[in-house]
């Protein structure tokens, strides 16, 4: 699993940090998403998937996934 984030689309809602704090953080100056690891360990897959689903700005993708799931 490879995680991709789009900092231009991010609206700093913080949903990803609440869901998978091991994988996502926020920039100090404006709360925009920072990816801590592009390839998180297996046991975090469900959390990362939920973070992608909950992201209101659709700024998180999982590269292994079908496009439509990543874009939900």
């Amino acid at each position: 699993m490879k995680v991709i984030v789009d900092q231009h689309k991010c609206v700093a809602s913080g949903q990803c940090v609440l869901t998978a704090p091991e994988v996502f953080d926020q920039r100090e100056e404006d709360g925009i998403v920072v990816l801590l690891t592009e390839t998180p360990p297996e046991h975090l897959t469900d959390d990362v998937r939920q973070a992608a689903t909950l992201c209101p700005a659709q700024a998180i993708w999982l590269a292994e996934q079908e496009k439509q799931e990543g874009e939900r």
Partner: protein
Amino acid sequence: MSTISAPGTDVPPAETPDYPMTRAAGCPFDPPPALHTRQTEAPISRVRLWNGTTPWLVTRYEDVRALLADPRIGSDSTHPHYPHQSPAAKERRRQSRTFITMDDPEHARLRRMVTAAFSIKHVEALRPAIQKIVDDLIDAMLAGPRPVDLVQAFALPVPSLVICALLGVPYADHDFFQTNSRILVRSTTTPEQARAATQLLLDYLDRLIGDKLTHPTDDLLSTLAERVRAGEISRHEAASMGILLLIAGHETTANMIALGTLALLRHPDQLARVSASDDPKPIASAVEELLRYLTIVHSGRRRVAREDIEIGGVTIRAGEGVVLANDIGNRDPAAFPDPDRLDVDRNPRHHVAFGFGVHQCLGQPLARVELQVVYSTLYRRIPTLRLAVGLDQIPFKHDGTVYGVYELPVTW
């Protein structure tokens, strides 16, 4: 559905129902029955607003979520077909417009000026201070007379104290800003009353920003003042953002505290689950469920289509108003099994109580922490908390753009 308004039909039929709709007597926590009917029979269909306009009302969870995230939908309140919530809301938007009724790139530019203060890390750092505010207010309540109005003694002061500290607004002025805020969120307010209240708040925030320009402190208004000094925003824009944050920061959370408490008191089995736990996870789940179940922003998210959109068998034309009913969306059985049951173990993180898309609530991390602290403390410290009057004597905010209770007399 074609019987309500065929795809492409520009003239809505005469039977187009009025919106917002009315809740059923004796069911203060449930959305209006007519919204349930819409969701089942005509999930995307037209309604009639206060000014006679007939935007689309979207009622299914999946459609609400999809359209809120759709770049073909805009939030520009200066569009002639923007479906304003009330005459007062229209006047306020005209006089004091902020990024919540703008589209990108302007929206993103302005929103990002204030997002740092609401990051998870920043908000978590406030948790001990919020806990102290909650504990002190409970101490004062326990030392005072019974019964007491929980709204005035607790629900309103908690978020007001928190947002005042965050913004750098003196809490001593709370009567002033709470009174004017209340005027602006009531749908029966006239445009003249809204104009006067908005102007008072604009003048007040402008004065505070002026103070921060000369004497900056460690708060959000000082950050905005710095942006003014740098020429990135005008003082009017900064004051408008200040009003938005001040109102959104206390009105919504105050209503969630009081209405959430009432909902739990009316569901003792659920209250027992909340008060028995000091583990943060079940408390966080209870907060999400109460946000979903109550969805206090109950007059829909307001948008305008920027392009033609085909969805659910209808065509929303470019330039038409759209109302996304997140309250009934949060009661959609397709997204939440047995949706009308309050179940604090459900953990429905995917609810749309904070909206969805790029305009999703900026202050949600703060609201979550405030509600987690309140729900994990109030019922544990006052286990015998109960209503001091019957449910039928509680005044609900049926006329508010944000739902809640005007008063909640409680005793213990």
